[in-house]
């Protein structure tokens, strides 16, 4: 790791002020992704602002009948919370499908949303990668791109977003609360948080520099059933080949796009009375086979109806 200075923020306001005052500063909460990348010098912050102990870990009811989850709540704490389990089971299922127990115990909700891609060409600093080294090219485009995106990618970047939790949050219609480095609070839809790569894959979110995620807010739970399904190469502790969160009529896909992928076309088709298979076929009309990831199209076509059936309580 390159040398850096470290401070522990006394408050959220102090944290964003410190970020505003210091060039190349990064927040650290759990650190499970940031330190992984700092060891490889993919991330090279000059200053770390530890926000992990800020009093932003509460999980509490909202006046609207939803749930506000503090950004510093651990992934495990969210998954284990009684209200999440009973009213938002898809969120618990998604969280416990990600990482390992040890990682979930350390990783924060905010950090989970901001984790970076697992693309092998991003991780290997000997390779070109427009996300890591803008302008260097995309090693995955013509490479061993089995894990690449089928939705939302560009010629500059075909990497996927690795979060499971965010996929469930997308299906649940969550919003994100932030504090800017000027001290301003704002809310944005989870679906607006992550950006598609376009020509600037290094810009991954709509957050401004030094803007801190303080909470994720869930609307009241949807009326219909929920389910999360994840397919991967081994039974546990592995990145997804594809995943899907279903919450009532809302569908979000994981491991197939640069962000949690709201399947809007599928949702619309479903709402119009299409069968689950027809609905996901409508979504997959926009899918892109990059050479080795084409199987994801078949996989999603089969996985989504199965998850919808599961959410509806139908037997396989």
């Amino acid at each position, binding site marked *: 790791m390159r040398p850096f200075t470290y401070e522990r923020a006394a408050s959220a306001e102090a944290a964003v002020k410190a970020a505003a005052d210091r060039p190349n500063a990064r927040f650290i909460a759990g650190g499970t992704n940031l330190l992984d990348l700092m060891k490889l010098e993919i991330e090279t912050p000059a200053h770390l602002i530890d926000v992990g102990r800020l009093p932003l870990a509460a999980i509490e009811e909202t006046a609207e009948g939803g749930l506000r989850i503090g950004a510093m709540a651990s992934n495990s704490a969210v998954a284990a919370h009684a209200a999440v389990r009973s009213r938002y089971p898809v969120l618990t299922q998604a969280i416990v499908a990600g990482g390992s127990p040890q990682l979930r115990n350390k990783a924060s909700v905010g950090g989970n949303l901001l984790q970076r891609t697992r693309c092998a060409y991003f991780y290997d600093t000997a390779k070109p990668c427009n996300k890591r080294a803008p302008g260097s090219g995309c*090693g995955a485009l013509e490479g061993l791109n089995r894990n690449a995106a089928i939705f939302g990618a560009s010629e500059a970047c075909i990497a996927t977003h690795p979060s499971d939790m965010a996929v469930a949050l997308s299906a649940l219609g969550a919003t994100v609360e932030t504090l800017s480095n000027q001290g301003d609070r704002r809310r944005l839809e989870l679906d607006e948080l992550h950006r598609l790569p376009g020509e600037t894959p290094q810009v991954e979110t709509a957050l401004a520099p030094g803007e801190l995620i303080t909470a994720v807010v869930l609307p009241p739970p949807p009326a219909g059933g929920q389910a999360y399904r994840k397919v991967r190469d081994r*039974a546990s502790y592995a990145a997804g080949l594809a995943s899907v969160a279903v919450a009532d009529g809302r569908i979000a896909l994981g491991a197939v796009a640069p962000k949690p992928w709201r399947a809007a076309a599928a949702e619309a088709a479903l709402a119009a009375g299409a069968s689950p298979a027809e609905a996901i076929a409508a979504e997959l009309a926009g899918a892109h086979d990059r050479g080795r990831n084409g199987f994801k199209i078949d996989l999603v076509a089969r996985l989504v109806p199965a998850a919808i059936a599961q959410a509806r309580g139908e037997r396989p």
Partner: protein
Amino acid sequence: MSSVIDWENTPNPVKENRGGVIGKPVDRYEGPLKVTGTAPYAYEVTPPSPPAYGVMVSAPIAKGRITAVDTAAAEAAPGVLLVWTHRNAPAQGPRPARYDFFTPSPRPALESDQVHYFGQQVAVVVADTLENAQAAAALVRLSYAEDPKAVVLAQHHAEAVQPPGESDVEIGDFEAAFAAAPVTVDDVWKTPLQNHCQMEPCATTAWWEGEQLTVHTSVQMVRFAQNSLAETLMMPHKQVRLLTRYVGGGFGGKGSFYEDLVLASLAARELGRPVKIAFSRQQMMHGTVHRPATEIRVRLGATPDGRLTALSLMTTTHCDRRGNFTEHASNFARSLYAAPNRLTGHRLVRLDLPVASAMRAPGEASGTLSLEVAMDELAEKLGMDPVELRILNEPQSDPETGKPFSIRQLVRCFREGAQMFGWDRRNPIPGRERDGRWLVGMGTAAAIRGNFLLPAKASFTVDAQGVVTVRQGMTDIGTGTYTVLAQIAAETLGVPLADVRVEIGDSELPPAPGSGGQFGAATAGSAALDAGMNLRTAIAELAANDPASPLYGGPAGAVVFQDGVVAIGNRSERLADLIGRNRPDGLTADGEVRPAADASQWSSHTYGAHYVEVGVDPVTGEVRTRRMLGVFAAGRILNWKTARSQLTGGMIWGVGSALTEGNAPDPRYGSLINQDLASYLVPVQADIGELDAIMLDEVDDKANPMGIKGVGELGISGAGAAVANAIYNACGVRVRDYPITPDKLLAGIIAAGG
């Protein structure tokens, strides 16, 4: 020179097992240290003074040369003590043009500007702290001129050659018999390059006291590494003491040694202080060795009633340009099934990949993934049960050489396994059994792995407290060496296990070849038994000649060793008293074993039968193993607990090779795509369902004086094939390109209309 006849006819304490220690499932000797985290592995040894920390820099190209070196920034970085590249690395012994596993030779580090593979170590930084060394290593700037490289086996078949010194083995007329066979199988199976992924990355702590070097490192072969290091450093062997007391996994990947050992030694000399260097996990994937990929064409011809008339395995594989390793994936087939017409052989392609070498059950691990699935396909074509097909083709003597088997209980393994597993519940028609969202299927396969014995020495010492110490330059890489040596000593000298000490993993001890090839226990143990026998003789003579001993007058040949007491009839005394009186500093005897002169007259193998039940999700192509049973015959078992663990571990490696493990070269960069444990997927706990290994009672009295054989590699042999066969039985799809990942299986399911 010993002979098999002597082994068969000479009784010894291990065979007689009067104390009952042999075979007993005793806990691991070093277990209390391992479960408390107090067993010091190589990087954890406390040197005589605080160490400096080395970090290596790896080449980002696969082939070419270093054209410019800029280490100014690294040298100026905080805490940096030393930066070496090929420009300024100390002189070392020259690397031989070709080298192999067992012949010690120099392995110089940073030897030239040439880059032979991606991830080759090209620089080292040593600093006062690990953090400073890591940061400075990233500041080393090297420029390269790249040459064209070849890294993908499938693209270079035209360059395949017969491995040096080998030829195809043909019995009868294979081509004619195959052409005439009424029922045939002819397919190609592909296995990928695999990485060992030992949990402990290679590491060394080194320090000097004058001209004497001490290194603690993580290797499987003590004497080989010590001699090679001394020759690399151009110094007398005896001035290098190499220790490797705890090894965090080897599996063949630590059969050799790497730049951590050489550079830590050199840097410690240069700096006059201890230095330790470890590989990063990422560096392990390219910078050590791997199991090379194979493409295996299997052709089987049979009569309608299931008798094999023609059998061929032809393997194409690869190694690095300077190496000399062949993955002999066809060899096991020479001894497995009867067939009058046979053709086996190998073709080798040299590629610009890292060094190919041995990984757990080299040959069998890859080869059984082909033949043992081909047999399943043949059984289906014949309408036969796959177990019955194998039993029908059981040979009476080695089908290639005609030599008698030392002992062969493969049929019994199949029969007993079938009954225990409930094989009769298997539906021979694929895709008919369902449990919830899972299609369920069963598969079987044979296991076979050769048996080997190498020369080794050992010494035994008994002290005035009656404590027996075994000393041997052997290793325990998780195999149970400490424990089985203690058991041999306890049984041979008739002392309680609590009164046995085992000292291994040190080049100053009597040499043994080390751990590998499933030869460890037989080789090291036979030498230990000999040392124990010699110590018994010395003790008996001491007693018979000591007027103060109740045993005075002998006869020495009648002395019995039991419960820490030596006795002739009703005359007895404590072993400790005898030694204390006569040899207060202890009594030592040496021993050794050599392969029997007539050993090659027998075909000697270990065998087993695998039974597997899997679930396949036909929607997603996911596979889960539900139940696995292996039944094995591997000679006398020294310790039923540690042997079973070796076998179950091997079986789980078979699951990995069938379902998840593999690494692919990217031809544009010459590198492997999976460079860590998040991308190279070894099985995790959730991948393994109910699983057990059963060992049949067996004694192979032609294998060595103890009648034991190895178990470390047998478990993987055939296990993956049984998984593949179970997948077919579950869903009716064959994937012949391993690993059988959801994408491949799903493509097959869709193609089959599922």
